[in-house]
């Protein structure tokens, strides 16, 4: 995979393309972005992920030039961009609503930005043809935006924003209006185009699957702050907080008190009269400190008998089963009322399913399966 080689964020000498330095943005009393510092590197596909109202769109609009920071500096290729108006920035944006000009044809929409630059007519034609080929819309050049489908409109919007070969392309929930199947196809198309053109992409999304699929790095945001910035696998496997663990994917959170038991190993007392759990963690915890053990459901095994060598095993009753076709998630209720999710692949036909409602089962996981978090 490309991501194993491409990691400028780990290189201390790499110069970021975009640099947010202690940026704060307030709208009246409301703080949309709170003292945020972030570097984004050239050729990255960077995803800003968060629930609505977390400030991700504001960050994008500040990059495009539609908003300016209340405090702090945003640099693009080493230059403060605050005094540069949107029409003078080497940044283009693909809007959530696509914002195609309804009175212009597909061709003219794509040519719009090139003509503003007083590009010679021949060059405009060549560039538009190239863009149409890139998004495979050659046949639709003469159509108006309302004469093409949603997926095609989305590709026109992409072609239009790429036509000027910007240093940075901003994508604001670009696939929000597409249905799931089309969205998945388009995600791969986007990655392909990003690789082909070598443009730096910053995508705003609230869809974690989308962010994980397309991005080289993901920034999880909440209430104007960055919760964690890392590669998709690290965000998933080693979230740094309960918020991130909970936001990305499905997770069981078990709250308890930690007691050190040898090197990087902790005993977790989490409920009266229940056997304590064991977890390994490189994060340090003091004796008696409150901790949260986050375990992904697919890392919890479900068996009829108690496994002999399991570091952690609890018994419970199958409370509910969510059948997703390829996977099943078992909601197992423990005697103390806690519900723990365990996920298994449906490698056998459903009629041969081992467990059903009300069955007594054992859940088990290894000491390294979960992540121990302070908050």
């Amino acid at each position: 995979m490309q991501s194993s080689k491409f990691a400028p964020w780990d290189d201390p000498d790499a110069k970021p393309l975009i640099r947010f330095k202690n940026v704060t943005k307030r709208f009246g009393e409301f703080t949309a972005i709170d003292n945020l510092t972030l570097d984004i590197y050239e050729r990255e596909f960077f995803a800003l992920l968060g629930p609505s109202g977390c400030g991700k769109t504001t960050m994008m609009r500040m990059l495009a030039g539609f908003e300016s920071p209340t405090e702090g500096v945003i640099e693009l290729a080493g230059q403060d961009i605050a005094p540069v108006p949107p029409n003078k920035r080497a940044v283009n944006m693909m809007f959530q609503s696509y914002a195609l000009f309804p009175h212009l044809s597909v061709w003219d929409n794509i040519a719009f930005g090139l003509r503003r630059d007083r590009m010679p007519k021949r060059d405009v034609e060549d560039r538009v043809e190239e863009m149409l080929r890139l998004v495979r819309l050659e046949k639709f050049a003469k159509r108006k935006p309302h004469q093409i489908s949603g997926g095609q409109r989305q590709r026109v919007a992409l072609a239009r924003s790429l036509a000027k070969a910007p240093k940075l392309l901003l994508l604001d929930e670009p696939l929000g209006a597409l249905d799931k199947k089309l969205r998945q196809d388009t995600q791969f198309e986007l990655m392909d185009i990003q690789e082909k053109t070598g443009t730096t992409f910053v995508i705003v999304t609230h869809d974690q699957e989308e962010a994980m699929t397309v991005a080289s790095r993901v920034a999880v945001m909440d209430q104007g702050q960055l919760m964690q910035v890392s590669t998709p696998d690290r965000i998933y496997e080693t979230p740094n907080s309960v918020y991130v663990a909970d936001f990305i994917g499905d997770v069981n959170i078990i709250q308890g008190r930690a007691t050190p038991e040898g090197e990087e190993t902790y005993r977790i007392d989490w409920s009266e009269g229940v056997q304590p759990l064991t977890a390994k963690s490189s994060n340090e915890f003091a004796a008696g400190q409150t901790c949260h053990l986050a375990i992904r459901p697919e890392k919890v095994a479900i068996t009829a008998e108690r496994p002999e060598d399991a570091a952690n095993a609890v018994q419970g009753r199958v409370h509910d089963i969510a059948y997703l076709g390829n996977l099943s998630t078992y909601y197992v209720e423990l005697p103390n009322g806690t519900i723990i999710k365990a996920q298994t692949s449906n490698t056998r036909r459903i009629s041969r399913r081992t467990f059903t409602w009300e069955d007594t089962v054992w859940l088990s996981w290894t000491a390294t399966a979960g992540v121990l978090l302070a908050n």
Partner: protein
Amino acid sequence: MNRLSWFNTVSLTLGFAFLYIPMVILIVYSFNESKLVTVWAGFSTKWYGELLGNDAFLSAAWVTVKVAVLSSTFATVLGTMGAYVLVRGGRFMGRTLFSGMIYAPLVMPEVITGLSLLLLFIGIGIERGVMTIVLAHTTFSMCYVSVVVSSRLVTFDRSLEEAALDLGCSPAEAFRLVTLPIIAPAVISGWLLAFTLSLDDLVIASFTSGPSATTLPIKIFSAVRLGVSPEINALSTIMIGIVTVGVISASLISKQALVRQKRDEQAAARAQ
């Protein structure tokens, strides 16, 4: 087809009779042979012929058209500018006051508008004529234009303008190349509204016209005071005809555009 109940039939008949009987009578009598308006003496189109020979009416008609074209054009420019600032200007000092005040001329009695304009023209010493009527009509019709245009601007997707800026337009270019073409239908209907308002205005025109400029409504009104002549009926019938053709063709055009757009969208959805 649903059959109407007797109650609905009666309501419909009464309503439309109320609306159209006066006009039908006017049209019928414009084809009257007799000079006496109230006595039917057979069919004739002679009053239409006579109208064409009446220089006073023709010159009044010319003045009216001139005033209507000029004033509605000025009103459209000013009204569109006003609407743009009020919808897009953000929160500036006195915005609420301004947006309230722009509606005031809509409810102001015409007599008062006319009188105040007359006082103004006398005060600054402009000789009354075509120019003063144009100014007066611009004043009262620009607020109608601004209401029509601002209602369109409120629903205008602002990201279209942002996209234009993003692609390298200056704000002025963005308005000219993107906003204006898209709101053009509202601007045109604002112009048409201003045009008809100006065509039909009697009160304000009487206050602000001078001896050199008489509009058609003034002419008709003063002629009627000497007794209704079939010639006036003929003139009014022509005006009704022009307005009817205008309204019908405008609605046909917009309906056709709507049908075409629907068809295109359905075709696009099928293609997907």
